[in-house]
Every structure is written in structure tokens, then in C-alpha cells.
């Protein structure tokens, strides 16, 4: 078994129009910028994939990564908790123009819905959002005298995730707070595609240190020196660069 993929273009080749794609990251940390840009390249070359539903904590920042995907018109719906950032202009304009649908989910509920999707739990109850606009239309039940809101699992066709070290079997470690949604999204997607800084042979990761076991991962592609969204934005980068 070898889950390694030779290049980024091949890694994102299976994503089709209308699919739900989970994208890891919290703000810039853990954001699989190179995988996203490879998907944008494919869209620019072929016109596909389009009409995507994207699940991410945020809605992109500046004009790179997820923001660039939205700017290119690839995304019709976003499921997220916090569609604001230092430079949220791309999402904000599309949203206010009615060109992109937003499903706003409390952050902990978003995480748990993804976890539930990966764990085979179709619904669960949480105290979060009880009595608020975000609980409207949802079933409420009392447990031990307190009201809880029923939430449904969230699953995806693909997950694009950034990890740190991966082996050929898909076992993963992460780097610091870049872990965030990665392990959850790998489990909740039919196909989890992971970019790692380094691919090692099986045995190259201490079994005690594995955070995402390979069973949750379908593909691993090596991106030795991944860029950080924050650094691209500080350099005022735009993807793809417009030829003058």
C-alpha cells in the first residue's frame, strides 16, 4: 500500500462539480494553501470544479487560498463559524451581493458536527446556540433539566488538509496549533487528501506520536516548504497573479 500522490495537480484531480469539500485550518494556521491553489489552477484551466460547498472555520483572508477560490467563483456555499478576517473583502462582497450562501455554525458545533460525521453519529445535542437565532428550526430537548439543541453530522466528499509529517500509509503528525480541524476533517471525508512537509517510510513516525491514523487518509502529497497564508497576505499576494 502506498498512499502518496506524486504532485498537487493529481492530488486534487478527483474533486468534481457540486461536491462538498472540507478545508482544514483556523485562520492561516493549518491552511492547505498549496492544495487550494492547485484546485484553482485546475478550475482556471478546465472550468471545473465549480458549485462547491466548502466547510472551513473561516471565509478566507486577502486574495489567496480559500479567498481566491471564492474570488474565482468556485464556491456557491460556505459552512463556517467566523467569516471575518483582517481582509474579508472577497467573501463579504460576494455574500452581500447574494452570490454565495452562508451556513453559520458555532465553532464548537462545527467541530463536533465534523467529528460526528467521521464517527458515524448522525445527530447529537449541544447546549450551544440554545435560545439564539442559530437554533431556529432545530429540535430542542431537555436532559437533566437543561435544554439542548439537536445538531446533525457533517460529512464531505473531499477534505483538503495540511499536516506536518506523513508516512506512505497516511499516518500523520501535525505542527502545533495547525492541527485544529485536520484530524476531524480527515475522518469525515470520503477522500482525505493531505499535504505534508515530509513523507517518510512506514516506521518513520513513532506510533505514540501519530495524531491521525492512516485509516482516515486516502492520499498524501509532499509540499516541502509550505507557505503560510499570513505571510502571503503580509506580502499582499494575489492568487493567481494577474498578468499586466
Amino acid at each position: 500500500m502506498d498512499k502518496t500522490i506524486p504532485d498537487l495537480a493529481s492530488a486534487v484531480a478527483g474533486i468534481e462539480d457540486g461536491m462538498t469539500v472540507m478545508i482544514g485550518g483556523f485562520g492561516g494556521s493549518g491552511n492547505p494553501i498549496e492544495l487550494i491553489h492547485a484546485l484553482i489552477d485546475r478550475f482556471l484551466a478546465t472550468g471545473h470544479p465549480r458549485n462547491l460547498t466548502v466547510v472551513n472555520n473561516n471565509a478566507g483572508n486577502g486574495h489567496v487560498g480559500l479567498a481566491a477560490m471564492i474570488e474565482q467563483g468556485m464556491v456557491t456555499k460556505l459552512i463556517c463559524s467566523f467569516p471575518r478576517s483582517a481582509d474579508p473583502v472577497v467573501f463579504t462582497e460576494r455574500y452581500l451581493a447574494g452570490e454565495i450562501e452562508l451556513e453559520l455554525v458555532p465553532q464548537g458545533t462545527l467541530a463536533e458536527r465534523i467529528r460526528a460525521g467521521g464517527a458515524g453519529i448522525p445527530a447529537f445535542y449541544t447546549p450551544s446556540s440554545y435560545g439564539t437565532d442559530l437554533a431556529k428550526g432545530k429540535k430542542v430537548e431537555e436532559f437533566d433539566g437543561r435544554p439542548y439543541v439537536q445538531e446533525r453530522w457533517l460529512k464531505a466528499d473531499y477534505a483538503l488538509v495540511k499536516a506536518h509529517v506523513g508516512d506512505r500509509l497516511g499516518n500523520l503528525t501535525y505542527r502545533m496549533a495547525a492541527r485544529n480541524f485536520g484530524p476531524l476533517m480527515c475522518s469525515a471525508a470520503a477522500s482525505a487528501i493531505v499535504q505534508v512537509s515530509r513523507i517518510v517510510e512506514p516506521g518513520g513516525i513513532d506510533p505514540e506520536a501519530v495524531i491521525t491514523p492512516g485509516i482516515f487518509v486516502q492520499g498524501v502529497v509532499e509540499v516541502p516548504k509550505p507557505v503560510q497564508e499570513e505571510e502571503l497576505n503580509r506580502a499582499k499576494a494575489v492568487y493567481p497573479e494577474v498578468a499586466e
Partner: protein
Amino acid sequence: MTEKLTPTQIAWRAAQDITDGAYVNLGIGLPEMVARFQPPGRQAIFHTENGILGFGQAPEPGQEDWDLINAGKKAVTLKPGTAFFHHADSFAMVRGGHLDVAILGAYQVAENGDLANWSTGPKGVPAVGGAMDLVHGARRVAIITDHVTKKGEPKLVESCTLPLTGVGCVTRVYTSLAVVDIEDGHFVLREKLPSISLDDLQSLTGARLHTPGPVGDLTAPEL
């Protein structure tokens, strides 16, 4: 206009109530400042919902590692004993009742403990983040805020008119003029600035301030 505490001084006052060893989540913005004013001899462990327990202060400019950020997307540093975890574990800590205190900002707090702090209405782009999770689960949910809005309207009210973040969740409010507990559906005044009269404070408050016990002086150092 009466004198009032600066936002920094409100954060200082809130920090005085954090006990040694407490697990604390600080909301984005002003609440983050609370970490700067831990009283000597006490060590709180700060939780950030993106997946770190026990992080340290901001690094020097140029030393940032963008995989090491807090919920406000600001760079932080490692300390001995730091732990990383994924988002589901992070919010298990939040909703599971494992945090001792969450300190958040507010647009409005109602006398029954309802909080509005995520949306100013249907205009613009709504964004909630972890606020609706944080108000459930932490043993204490404290608010730091100016006593009134920029227009001078009370932020402590009978019932919130803005969209709710949580129902009956706030336990204490630190304002620029007072420290107010929420008990049995009432605002209970614990401390006020010595320079403001109870009547004047009441006139800036949208619901009745109860005074079943002594009212202490709210003081903070120049910061």
C-alpha cells in the same frame, strides 16, 4: 461626565479574580488583555479554542510562527507545559465544564444573565466563532465592557434587544463603573467607583441594581 476605568483597568480588575491554577479562556479583543495582569504568585492556564492550553505571551515582531496563534489569529509563544489538541477536544474542554472561567466582551447583558455579543442585527456579515460555545460550560462566564455604549445607552439591560449569544449564562460583569453579579435574575451591585453616586450609576443602568450587601469601592491602578 464621571470618570471611569479605562479598558485596560477593567481588564486588570477582572484579572484580580482569577485564582491560581484556574483554566481560563479569554475572548478576542479586550479580554485578551486580562492575561497581562495576573496577580503575582498566581498562575492561570490559558486556553485558546483553536487548540492550545498554556500558551505564553506574544513573540517579538519577526519571531512569529504562524502555526502558533491564538483565537484572535495573533501569534503566541510556547511555555513549559503547553499542550496542543484538535478542535473537538478543544470544545470538549469548553462545553464539558472543564474551564473555570471564560471572559468575554458584550454588546448587552440582561439581568437574567442573557448575553448579546455576536451580532448587531441583520446588516452585514454574521460571524459567531466560539462565543456560543464558550458561554456554556465554563463555571464562571464573566463579561468586561464599558458600562454604556458609545452613544451613552445602557449595556446592562432588562432584556437584550440584540440577537442573543446565550441564555442565562453570565455570572459577573466588570464595567468601567462597577462590578455587578447576576443572581436569581437580578443585577447585584458588588463594587462601584467611589466617585459615582448610586443614583447616577442606576441612571446609566437599564435595569435595577440590587444592593443586598455592602458595596465596595472599585479601584484600579493607573495603567
